[in-house]
């Protein structure tokens, strides 16, 4: 077989979304690759400009559909900075709890997809099964499985239901047992190690040059985690370790993600204990009135003149399950943000594809791209 270009996507089992990986192959070897994005470009940044600040949250859930709450948190942090609003402490804790549960749910989804790429059939079902338990928790306080619309500028929509923390602890206990089982299914398998060791190498140097963040970066031995380095929200109060591996290959990324789930469990137990003992308001009481009621402006406040709004710039950065996500919100007065710009970690991780794909086999593409954990929604936005 001579050299040829192979289109993997947009409809392809490997992609886990809607994108196209064009690879140039010689036999089974990859010579070059060119990811083609944009099949899911929904213009979220543009639509946000026509929306009320709290309405953008709806789009955030759909922006990264496996980590909706983390993206809500990201946007809320930037919007609060731009609007000069401070949330109550309990809301911050609840948001951090959402983040960590979302990290577990997202990593379970990643686990399911990743092992399926390797041809392991049953762990896919196990991952999805355990993810459903976390989604049940979300459902108990947001009412939705995936698109929550839970956080608000200035806090969260509602407090946790009674008995939530106990249920959450039960789920954590169950999950802690499952991690052992997952490891036995994957790391215990010789075929898994044979396939994943020394695969998809991306050294720390390349990671920094190409802007790769998140578990991929930490798997290269760089101990960088925004929760430690630039503690937003309440992460300063939590006791946890940053999961690091140094092999920079697919196995290392697997190890990092599994360890992150364990660390999330550890953090969650601390947060749940705090939540048990600190009841309080979850929404700031000194909110501008127009923030509370987008569709039913009460009195004249809803039609405030533009000059009466506070102006500001908001920038936030959050350690999302896939990596570092950033939001840049420009508030020029008015009920709508003037410009919203998001930085997706997967965007950078995919753009580095040439570094970790070239030189491997066609059969290696699914596990490597699986270890990148692609979520196309946030790449294309």
């Amino acid at each position, binding site marked *: 077989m001579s050299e040829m270009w192979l289109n993997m996507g947009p409809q392809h089992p490997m992609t886990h979304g809607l994108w196209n990986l064009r690879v140039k192959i010689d036999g*089974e070897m990859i010579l070059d690759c060119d990811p083609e994005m944009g099949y899911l470009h929904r213009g979220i940044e543009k639509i946000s400009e026509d929306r009320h600040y709290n309405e953008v949250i709806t789009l955030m859930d759909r922006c990264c559909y496996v980590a909706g709450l983390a993206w809500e948190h990201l946007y809320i942090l930037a919007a609060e900075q731009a609007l000069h609003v401070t949330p109550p402490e309990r809301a911050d804790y609840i948001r951090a709890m959402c983040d960590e549960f979302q990290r577990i749910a997202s990593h379970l989804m990643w686990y399911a997809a990743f092992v399926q790429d390797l041809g*392991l059939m*049953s762990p896919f079902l196990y991952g999805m099964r355990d993810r459903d338990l976390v989604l049940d928790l979300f459902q108990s306080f947001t009412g939705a499985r995936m698109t929550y619309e839970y956080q608000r500028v200035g806090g969260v929509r509602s407090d946790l239901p009674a008995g939530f923390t106990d249920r959450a602890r039960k789920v954590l206990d169950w999950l802690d047992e499952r991690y052992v089982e997952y490891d036995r*299914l994957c790391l215990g*398998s010789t*075929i*898994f190690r044979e396939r994943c060791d020394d695969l998809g190498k991306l050294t720390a140097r390349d990671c920094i040059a190409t802007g790769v963040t998140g578990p991929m970066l930490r798997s290269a031995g760089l101990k960088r985690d925004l929760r430690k380095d630039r503690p937003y929200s309440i992460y300063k109060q939590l006791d946890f370790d940053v999961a690091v591996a140094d092999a920079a290959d697919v196995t290392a990324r697997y190890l990092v993600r599994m360890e992150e789930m364990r660390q999330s469990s550890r953090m969650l137990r601390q947060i749940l204990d705090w939540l048990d003992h600190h009841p309080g308001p979850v929404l700031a009481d000194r909110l501008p009135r127009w923030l509370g009621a987008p569709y039913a402006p009460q009195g004249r406040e809803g039609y405030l003149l533009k000059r009466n709004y506070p102006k500001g710039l908001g920038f936030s950065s959050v350690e999302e399950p896939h990596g570092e996500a950033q939001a840049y919100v420009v508030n020029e007065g008015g009920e709508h943000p003037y410009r919203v710009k998001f930085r997706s970690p997967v965007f950078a991780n995919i753009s580095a594809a040439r570094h970790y794909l070239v030189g491997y*086999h066609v*059969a290696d593409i699914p596990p490597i791209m699986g270890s990148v954990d692609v979520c196309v929604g946030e790449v294309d936005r």
Partner: protein
Amino acid sequence: MGGATLFSVSDTLASVLLNGLGSIFPQPIHGWLTNPDLILGLAVLIFGAILLAASMINTIVLIWWERKLLGRFMDRRGAMHVGYAGLLQNFADGLKLFRKNTFRPRESDSLGFYAGPVAYMVTSLIIFGILPISSGWNSGALPLSLLLALAIFSFAPLFIFVSAWSSNNKYSLMGGMRSAAQMIAYEVPLLLAVVAVVVVSGSFDLATIVQEQQNYWFWGPLFLALVVFVAGMLAEMERIPFDLPEAEAELVEGWNTEYGGMLFAFFMLADYLRALVGSILVVLLFLGGWTMPGWVPSAATSFPLAGIVWFMVKTYAVFGLFVWIRASLPRVRTDQLLRIGWNRMIPLSLASVFLAAALVLVRCLPVFGCLPSPGV
């Protein structure tokens, strides 16, 4: 059951039918109808029809068995709403595929595109004419039935490659290439493992091999050969961990990407036919065929059709093992697959041949008992 084989049953049936039919006609027609050649032809047809029906129904039930078992391994239930416990699910699938539009991509090669799946299906079916299922279900004592079965079994890569090539799709082509490479690489250890069995039993005839296992089954003393044979069979059947040719993650559906409708159903059926053949061969060569160990009460071994029932139970159990492997192992890569094949499997299979030779010299093993003396 003695010498009454399936073929002799068909023969009797045909002669009864034609004699009865001929008796109502006057002489010349009666003479034509009771012609032994005609009876033989009809017997072959009946025999073929029974074989076809039995193998098809078994295959479809096998697919059901796999789906249910896989569902249980995955913590779910599998098909359960069509028929009792989803037993009719695969019949529905088959009928639906029959109903689908048959078509071929414009740029593909029409001869190869249509001939490939048909030939694949036919060659997989033919093997059933050779395999003995019980002492009664036997097409007649072919002295080299084992070799013949394996020879027909190894036709498959050719037809897979033809159909993959002619469907003019890059994924199909890569799947076809992988399939050909893999099947050829695993033919050798497979045959060497069979040689071990042949050395011990002293025969290429499957029925004789089973007869030799009256005292003890070969899976114990020839365990190494069994492992090699099962691994090679997994590769030949293209099941996980060796299902690279249809590796869904990278090659969309492998070599049957461009096939839909009934041609796709042919591929599916032939795949499972081969899986059935593989399980049957494992049972015949290593698990004592239709014989039962001595501790089983005689009531369980002597009821009518006991041989067939025991045989099918064993076959489905072996296939259950394959499903278990599929549910719990990841897929290997092409180069690893070939490396395993040439570097590990061939030495192992050679070792198993030598072990078998040593066993023939010793003749008796403390736990397993003695081989029957030659000539019995």
